[in-house]
């Protein structure tokens, strides 16, 4: 199941806090899709969940300066 999070206009580190909160609620193999216009999150969110959690993370640029970051909870 996909869980969207709207993070447009949020400042760091709120996107990460929102995702961590959501991760506790979702089941294994669920995906979280965060939409953000914060350029830093394409580095900081990706590194955080890839390197610390070991989850697969994908970034899609959906518009100028807007990205969707897709995180799969795999364990």
């Amino acid at each position, binding site marked *: 199941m996909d869980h969207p999070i709207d993070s*447009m*206009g949020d400042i760091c580190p709120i996107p990460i806090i929102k995702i961590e909160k959501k991760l506790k609620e979702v089941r294994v193999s669920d995906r979280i899709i965060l939409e953000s216009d914060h350029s*830093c999150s394409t580095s*900081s969110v990706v*590194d955080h969940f890839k390197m610390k959690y070991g989850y697969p993370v994908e970034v899609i640029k959906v*518009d*100028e*300066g807007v990205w969707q970051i897709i995180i799969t909870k795999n364990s």
Partner: protein
Amino acid sequence: MALPVAADKGFGKTRQIYWGLLVFVFYYLLILRLADYNREAFLTALFGFAFGYILQRSRFCFAAGFRDIFMIRNTIVTRAILLLLLLTSIGFFLVNQMGGSDISAGGIIYPVGLHTVFGGVIFGFGLVIAGNCVSGCLMRMGEGYLMQWFTFIGLMVGSALGAWNLGWWGPQVIEHSPQVFIPDHLGWFTTITVYIAVIAVIYCLLLWYERGTIKSALSLSFSGASLYSSIKLMGQMLFAGRNWSYILGAVALSLTNILIFYFWGRPGAITGGLTHLAGWLSCRVGFLPCDWYYFNKLIYLESRRIFLEHPLLYMSAGIVLGSFFASLLHREFRIRQPKSYKFVISALVGGTLLGYSSRVAMGCNFGGFWGGVSSFSLHGWVFGIFIFLGAYLGGKFFMRYLV
């Protein structure tokens, strides 16, 4: 809940790249003009643009380095900052040894005392609620964040307040505080060795704090395949629009600062220039900043400059333009509105705190912390340590009132 931005709004047909080239032409004409009559401003504008470009591409955020340890138990950026400090220090040392520039004469070596401690704590608190440090503010202004323009207003107000309030801090505290240039006390060889050792130890401690193990710091593999893949990755970062890693950002930023130091004789800095802009604005609204301690009596102001001709002001402008150019070139520019009015207030308040504290501590994260540590001045270290304390307190406040 649906996400507000749909994927198919005709993305890909836009012309940001052409606007980017136009910005570059404007910048080129500007530095061409500066080269004629103000060589210092020419150099700072030149390197400021490089700073802005690198900061935007690598998303190098000092604020995250100070804040993420406490707020999300993450030390990736902090460790990149350590690498930045190490490389820049070694570079400054080499420039010094080659006779290019004398660090003790040109470096950022200021008195260390109660003002450094106080400034550090306020600065750390300010950077968490503003959501950025001073260099991050300029970088995001170039990327189109409206929130950071409010931070900038705060910075102006805070810098003016700080410059005025130095009338108290100067005679009471700063003039009684010693300047500590570490190699004077330890000698060059010991200083460099201690620097490398201290930074390595902090690096491992941070890694252990984050992951409970330091295995990844010790297991560096050098095989042909990993070399090939890292070269390929580097190529993608430099030429194909992939985000630069924090490591690449740290390397590029330190190289740029070393080059500035070599050619200009001083490391890069920001708030000295912003304070002169704030002084000019204060004149416009009827104050008399020339009587303020900072502009009038401060011995470190080597020459009395006209407000708008301070070379560091051109470095700040260069950072904003460089980031603007980088974000247009990669089609990432966007006018970004803050999510709620709370962020506008926190940006204004945080910016004011940043401006005020960087004046009291005599530098921001850029010149005071990075430039200070790399110039082997003790005040840089003390300032940095107390920024961490302030960021810890700021994090508590942030989680309670802003999340």
